[in-house]
């Protein structure tokens, strides 16, 4: 299977570097993302998750 893919891709000049670059970009991005979400401040996150529950407007609606 890999051989088959390689056969088609060989015709693109400098193709070897493409998958490597893509892989590195996404690997770093998603690792960074994981590190971020694991290290993120819990109080901050709780604050963000409360955003939809800001109920001031409902009380105004009942004026």
């Amino acid at each position, binding site marked *: *299977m890999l051989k088959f893919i390689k056969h088609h891709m060989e015709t693109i000049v400098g193709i070897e570097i493409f998958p490597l670059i893509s892989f590195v970009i996404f690997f770093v*991005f998603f690792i960074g993302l994981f590190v*971020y979400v694991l290290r993120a401040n819990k109080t901050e996150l709780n604050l963000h998750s409360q955003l*939809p529950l*800001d109920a001031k*407007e409902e009380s105004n*609606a009942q004026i």
Partner: protein
Amino acid sequence: MTEITEPQMEMKPKQDLGVDTFYYDNSIVRMFLIATTIFGIIGMTVGLLVACQFFWPELNFGIQYTTFGRIRPLHTNAVIFAFVGNGIFSGVYYSLQRLCKARMFSDLLSKIHFWGWQSIILAAAITLPLGFTSGKEYAELEWPIDIAIALIWVVFGINMIGTILKRRERHLYVAIWFYIATFVTVALLHIVNSMELPISLFKSYSVYAGVQDALVQWWYGHNAVAFFLTTPYLGLMYYFIPKASNRPIYSYRLSIIHFWALIFIYIWAGPHHLLYNALPDWAQSLGVVFSIMLIAPSWGGMLNGLLTLRGAWDRVREDPVLKFMVVAVTCYGMATFEGPMLSLKNFNAVAHFTDWIVAHVHVGGLGWNGFMTFAMLYYLIPQMYGTKLYSKKLANAHFWIGTMGIIFYALPMYWAGFAQSLMWKQFTPEGTLVYSNFLETVTQILPMYMLRAFGGFLYLAGVFVMVYNLIKTANAGSFIPNIKAQAAPLVKAYKPDPSEHWHRRIFEWRPINLMIWSLVMVIIGGVVEIIPTFLVSSNVPTITSVKPYTPLELHGRDIYVREGCYTCHSQMIRPFRSETARYGEYAKAGEFVYDHPFQWGSKRTGPDLLRIGNKYPNSWHYFHMLEPTSMSPGSIMPPYPWLYEQEWAKDMTPNKINAMQTLGVPYAEGFAEESVADAENQALSIVVDLASQGIEVKSDKEIIALIAYLQRMGTDISKIDGLAAKN
């Protein structure tokens, strides 16, 4: 009475101890909600009608405008873009204002967006039954409407981004990320897939051909599901489940990973719609791998939604809004597990072209999108009318009728899909097909089609119960067009704390960054799959005996496209013994190089037609199209008598040839001028042949052009000795 009407206050906010007073626009939300409901009813009614045509073909009423091939696209377009589309806009316009603590950017743009979108729907409802179609599934609308869609979509985008930019809440809640990704990706998909060359006001040809057209179309088709039916509704889930259950989302961390992983992976999965088709193997494999990976973010999102309700299950028993949400999210989970399974080649070999796929789509459509929309309606209408729901009992009744509707829809379709596929593949010990007559496999599953229609009827009946309940609710309350709210404006010279993480600095406060990077994420998947298929010639090996269509065949092909034949017939023989034994030589990528657009189809209600050419005499097609049961007793195909009265558009012939030449089809220089005579000659030869069978027909009738096309289809390859095509 709590009406407050001072929307202009948004422009000059009252400064009161540094707090702005402003008003949320409920009117636009209500307009979209009403449109959702109306088009939900229309789209589902058309769905029920087409479902009944399966076992009662007379329900096409004998006229072309209500024949299955034309109104099945009407059903799909209506439920996707009218029902769900308006549902998205209602939810976004409601939640975005509140999450940004700001009124929509411009009331005028909101109105242009609303009326523009409804006009597009109206145009679709008129043009599709008239047979104006580009022949690409879920993208059937013709080029002027495509342009209108792009423009109105941009209006929506400007209004949304404008609102985000003037927000009073620095942090962008995760729902907004999903809205932003939806906006950029749908724009990209729509524009790339709608590239077409117009030849008249309502007729165009896809600029892509064959394999490339198929890949672009399913990159679009799959991601229409992803970015029109999924990501915006996930945004709504992240807003409305916490809102309705009054508890924050289970894990905000998970939602961040959910977002990035989902948009990155989804865009690659399109080729799983083309497994075992004439698409390069590497593209198929990429599609499979990414489809399997999709389970992770999809289920992460589903669990995040469901676990939000942990500890609140007692309320789920009481509250119809939560009930609808639980079933919606559960259906999302089922559909997103089933989808990757269907992407495995061994599952796909059984399921593709059958009713299994129809069941899969409707678990998502009826369950996830439908029930989420109903939940939103039950939640928002009482809110916006300052009252309580008229009847919880009726809402519960709707819930159960709707759930039964989904079950009665899906189970028979699963059964039908399995049963028919196994019949297609069954051989006798001697090695011949047990069900060599395709029709036998159709008549066996007609009871399942009846049950499916019953399921659809139940589901639609539930919607009427909801409408009654909501009208009663609205009458009991009083609509609040503008709701007063207060919030402090953002500090302009805000300096983030050095301890703040990069993700917040880069994305969570910066909507434009988020938009650009979402676009980059989704472009990469598309580019990697699509560009090599276009540029690397070995992906579509040329077959020298494959020649362009004659002008008359081109006319016939356009009639084939107009009548939506692809909604029931494939033109794609997969390399299986069961298929080559039934239909003939399997399909090669090089056979479709002149097909603008491709017509591979995705469902076989009738047999594959790729090798129909020269299989039957002209007279067979003549009688079959006039009365299908005369040639195939028991057939559920509708008759096409209008083809015997209408004339093929002779004067359009040179235009068609010129357009094809522009797209790279190698007709000889100056052929356009001879094309009318060429078409007339070919038509005459068919008429003479028919006359020898005792059939009298004029050469300018549409049926002659259609016969020419049907007799040509898939025959070029037989000119090769021993079918030694290069691939």
